[in-house]
């Protein structure tokens, strides 16, 4: 589908750790409207595809109220392998309870990985699904946890297959690609930005990284020549070890989902009430399934182990299906798109919009395209809607998990802490100004002020980027000539 000329702004929101069935599977249930176009939880009480076995007993999806869980759910690469429960080349999707018991040693009648939300809990996702477009074949790109999946989302491939307390080794970051192609972009962050985990320092302290509180004002005051063409909006991450006023709202278990729904409402309302909405495409998706059950097997997408990777076993499939919602005047109301998509579908869209075609983003992204992964442009409609649905006004209130102490950090929290210390060591005053939550960071073990170690490759690239830009311009001139 050609991209509508009037589409000027792409907004990407990537939440954390929920599966499609968990958030949007209810759409197919008769008691919630019974959408026949959405592959959800219809007949989940009888269909074998939904049966999860543990020790000969069968467990099935159940409606759960929104509340914090006792603990995070299993979703590392080996744990996902248990969940997918391959028989030959076929993922049976029958091992979610098994993985949960192995991790938590809890065996309950209603295992949390099989819990699903209903409209009362996911009021904003429900609103977007009813008024815009649902993608029911959007998969996390790899069957692993946060860092590998976000690496694919923002670079097109991953050099890691697990989540560790480190700066994530990676290939060219999407932000560099956009800069190289003269695309105006911004990151609006609620707290610490996930892009810090890719070693960003100079960019993160610059004008392109702004607090989410500036979004509404910027949308109102930016001129057409200065308004960003690509906007990344980030929630307050639960894995950030420090917060400044905001509560985590990225939906990462054990969090309740209500704060994340409120966050999505704020984002949608800000965008849809701005004068730029008529030319905007909002993509809401999740980095990976986070351990929650989904009944649709992953796609057989092969990805070779890239050079410099810290793992040896190549990924042979995508990860688990994740929720994805597209809100825009360029999508029809209350529809579903069932073509194969993953996070690189966003990068394909950038290739189409800013470099002339979906294969112009990178070789890694093209390899996925060749195996059937489509661009987000596939969901777009030629006709431009003029109605602007109004989001529900009553936010949900949910019980919050109160932690008195959190002395033991998980791996991604360690990565955030490390990234925070690095940016403080790089330029403390500007870092504090940009990310005030850093005042709470324990810097007693800050990394040394050795530029060799604190400035990662990523921030030594401006010259490289200028060179690439020049090459692109020369190519363009030659084409014109």
């Amino acid at each position: 589908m050609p991209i509508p000329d009037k589409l000027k702004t792409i907004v990407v929101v990537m939440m954390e750790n929920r599966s499609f069935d968990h958030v949007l599977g209810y759409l197919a249930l008769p008691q919630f409207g019974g959408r026949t176009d959405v592959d959800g939880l219809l007949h989940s009480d009888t269909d074998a595809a939904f049966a999860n076995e543990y020790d000969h007993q069968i467990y099935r999806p159940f409606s759960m109220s929104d509340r914090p869980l006792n603990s995070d759910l299993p979703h590392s690469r080996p744990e996902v392998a248990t969940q997918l429960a391959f028989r030959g080349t076929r993922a049976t999707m029958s091992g979610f309870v098994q993985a949960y018991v192995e991790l938590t040693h809890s065996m309950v009648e209603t295992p949390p990985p099989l819990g699903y939300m209903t409209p009362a809990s996911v009021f904003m996702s429900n609103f977007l699904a009813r008024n815009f477009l649902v993608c029911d074949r959007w998969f996390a790109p790899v069957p692993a946890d946060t860092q590998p999946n976000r690496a694919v989302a923002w670079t097109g491939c991953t050099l890691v297959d697990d989540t560790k307390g480190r700066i994530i080794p990676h290939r060219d970051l999407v932000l560099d690609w956009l800069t190289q192609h003269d695309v105006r972009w911004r990151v609006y962050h609620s707290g610490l930005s996930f892009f810090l985990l890719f070693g960003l320092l100079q960019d993160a302290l610059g004008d392109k990284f702004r607090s989410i509180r500036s979004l509404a004002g910027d949308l109102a005051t930016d001129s057409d020549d200065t308004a960003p063409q690509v906007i990344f909006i980030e929630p307050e991450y639960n894995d950030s070890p420090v917060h400044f006023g905001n509560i985590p709202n990225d939906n990462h278990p054990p969090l309740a989902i209500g704060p994340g729904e409120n966050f999505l409402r704020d984002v949608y309302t800000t965008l849809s009430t701005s004068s730029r909405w008529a030319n905007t495409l909002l993509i809401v998706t999740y980095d990976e399934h986070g351990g929650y059950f989904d009944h649709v097997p992953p796609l057989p997408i092969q990805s070779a182990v890239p050079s410099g990777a810290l793992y040896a076993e190549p990924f042979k499939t995508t990860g688990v299906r994740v929720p994805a919602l597209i809100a825009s005047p360029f999508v029809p109301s209350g529809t579903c798109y069932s073509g194969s998509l993953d996070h690189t579908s966003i990068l394909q869209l950038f290739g189409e919009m800013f470099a002339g075609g979906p294969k112009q983003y990178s070789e890694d992204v093209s390899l996925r395209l060749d195996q059937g992964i489509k661009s987000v442009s596939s969901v777009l409609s030629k006709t431009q809607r003029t109605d602007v649905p109004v989001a529900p006004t009553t936010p949900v209130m949910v019980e919050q998990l109160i932690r008195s102490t959190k002395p033991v950090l998980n791996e991604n929290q360690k990565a955030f802490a490390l990234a925070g210390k690095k940016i403080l060591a790089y330029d403390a005053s500007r870092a504090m100004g940009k990310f005030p939550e850093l005042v709470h960071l324990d810097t007693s073990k800050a990394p040394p002020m050795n530029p060799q170690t604190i400035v990662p490759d990523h921030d030594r690239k401006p010259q490289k980027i200028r060179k690439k830009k020049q090459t692109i311009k020369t190519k363009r001139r030659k084409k014109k000539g």
Partner: protein
Amino acid sequence: MRTLVNRRARVKSLAESPRDSRWQIVSPVSAFVSVLWPLLLVGCASIESFQASPRNLCAGDTVTVTWQATGHVSLDANPSLSHTGPKDSQGSEPFTLQQTTRFVLSAHSLFSQKTADADVMVVANTPKEFGGLASCDVPSQGLTLTLPLQDPQVSPAMRVTSVTNMNARPILLRKENVQVTLLPGETSSAFDHLPAQGTWIVTSTLNQNESCADGLSAVHDRLTFRIAFSCRD
């Protein structure tokens, strides 16, 4: 380098003269062993295992709760039961149940806390679904699944009242010398009053020209059936 040499010398001295209290105090190795390691052990709570067996039983049956954990351990029940509370880090405890109960094992320490839950269902007339991934080695034998239901799953007192085929194709269900063919969704009382414990065998023949792979794919690799229970008089 100098420090390293000194440290090696100190470690060597310690090895040669283990009773020399001066070296035991100053050596980093002995300091780690004597002070830090116990602190670390105390500092990390963990749960290595937690089980309640059987998970389904009749009112008046006994469940055995077994655990292994690190840290200060406590076993609680909801609804509450006597003989719960602080426990050794490893052990097992029998409880007689009259109603469905959730057991919660907590292990806490200086730096962390872990909990694990185990539900035990007093089933009465509540049906339960059993099954698993089927196999199909020989097409003529069809899809098969053998299910040994023992103490971890059901108590000896539980009796069958009826069975229901939960698959989208006919199955043959066998236990001991009883067998019944069930259409999709069909319920039968052929096993009425038989103990739920024992080995259940589910088979489903392949259709004409259907391969094992196609047959397994058609049932999403699983065969399941539901049992409705009563309790021994």
